[in-house]
């Protein structure tokens, strides 16, 4: 199906914003490491991950534009805090602690890989095609972060301890990724998206499987309460948004 019935527009835009905003802000925060990551390869990797994520976000904003005609730059940069739909793990300050950056990346990458797999089964073909294509790139992110988890988990006592602390510190934020986007039930009921069961359970199985044998443990609980997916953001998000909008706001009508 290449045309989407009007009754689903609002719900699908909301789901697309969850994906695009997660990727835009995660990419933005990962680009903080450009030039200062611990080793050269990590520096190039985090810069590439940032490029990938921001490019993917752009493709999702374009898809939103095809539904409601809104300018992609305006969607990306021109909203108020409560209109953004990302989970605040993507903007949680890593304090330039490498273990924090890796923990955030690990939780988010596996989640994104599984979410895109599910969106690939969407019956609206423009989204299914895009999700399928981006998931092939996302697989490389998962592969990369898996290597880091094994490397740090199996490294020294010090690396394992720091990695575990970061995983624990980010656990409450990881929970918030699983807050259901508003309107997703409408899309399940309307046969637009396929309800493939609990995303948290699938994610927990995957992350447990990846750290299996490293001695690291994942203590993330299922989501309770409202957070970023319904527009309730924390201070770290607001700081990130202000930073992101700083240049855009100097001339919102400029062509980019």
């Amino acid at each position, binding site marked *: 199906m290449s045309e989407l019935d009007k009754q689903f527009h609002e719900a699908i835009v909301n789901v697309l914003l969850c994906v695009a905003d997660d990727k835009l802000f995660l990419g933005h925060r990962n680009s903080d490491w450009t030039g200062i990551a611990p080793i050269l*390869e990590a520096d*190039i*990797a985090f*810069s*590439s*991950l940032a*490029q*990938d994520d*921001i*490019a*993917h976000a*752009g*493709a999702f904003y374009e898809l939103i534009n095809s539904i409601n005609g809104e300018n992609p730059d305006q969607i990306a940069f021109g909203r108020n805090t409560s209109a953004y739909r990302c989970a605040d793990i993507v903007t949680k300050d890593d304090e330039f602690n490498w273990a924090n950056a890796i923990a955030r990346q690990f939780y988010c990458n*596996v989640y994104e*890989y599984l979410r895109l*797999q599910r969106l*690939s089964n969407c019956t609206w*073909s*423009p989204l299914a*095609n*895009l999700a*399928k*294509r*981006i*998931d*092939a*790139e*996302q*697989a*490389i992110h*998962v*592969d*990369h972060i*898996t*290597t880091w988890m094994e490397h740090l988990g199996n490294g020294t006592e010090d690396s394992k301890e720091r990695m575990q602390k970061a995983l624990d510190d980010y656990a409450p934020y990881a929970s918030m990724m699983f807050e259901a986007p508003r309107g997703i039930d409408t899309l399940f009921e309307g046969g637009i998206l396929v309800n493939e069961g609990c995303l948290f359970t699938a994610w927990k199985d*995957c992350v447990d*499987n*990846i750290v299996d044998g490293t001695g690291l443990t994942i203590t993330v609980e299922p989501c309770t309460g409202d957070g970023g997916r319904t527009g309730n953001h924390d201070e770290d998000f607001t700081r990130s948004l202000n930073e992101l909008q700083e240049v855009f706001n100097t001339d919102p009508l400029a062509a980019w």
Partner: protein
Amino acid sequence: MVDTKDIFTVLHTIPDPEMPISITDLGLIEQVEVSDSTAQIKLLPTFIGCFALPAIAEEIKQKVSRITGIENVEVELINDPPWTTDRISDAGRASLAEHGISVPENGSPCTAHNEPKTIELTTSAIPCPWCNSNETALTSPFGPTRCKSIHFCNACRQPFERMKKV
């Protein structure tokens, strides 16, 4: 009316801005149609949102519009079918190999839709494009462009790049 073959001939002269290969050999062109004096070209991005795309689209417009009988050139980006490394032609593969860029074999499975633990970017033996040895190691899955990884050959002690398998 202009024959689509003539348009393909022109497209074949346009190189990818980041690699020694034409955009036709890279498999970027999905469809070319001509109606009256308008050429419509459907282009597949290698990596989504690749930063070279605007430059490629601009060059297509410039060069194709110089063909006698063509007044308008429309370039549309599409994601269906998805671009994969299987779309790179034999001539393209040969040209890339000459420059030390390795390409996954045709039909090798795409990395998406596996369980994350079974994605095997790092473990599979990748032959060196310089000396064909399998004694190679992944240096970094991220390289000079988004679509390439960096490897090192322990036999001939040379680094090389590889198109990522998507």
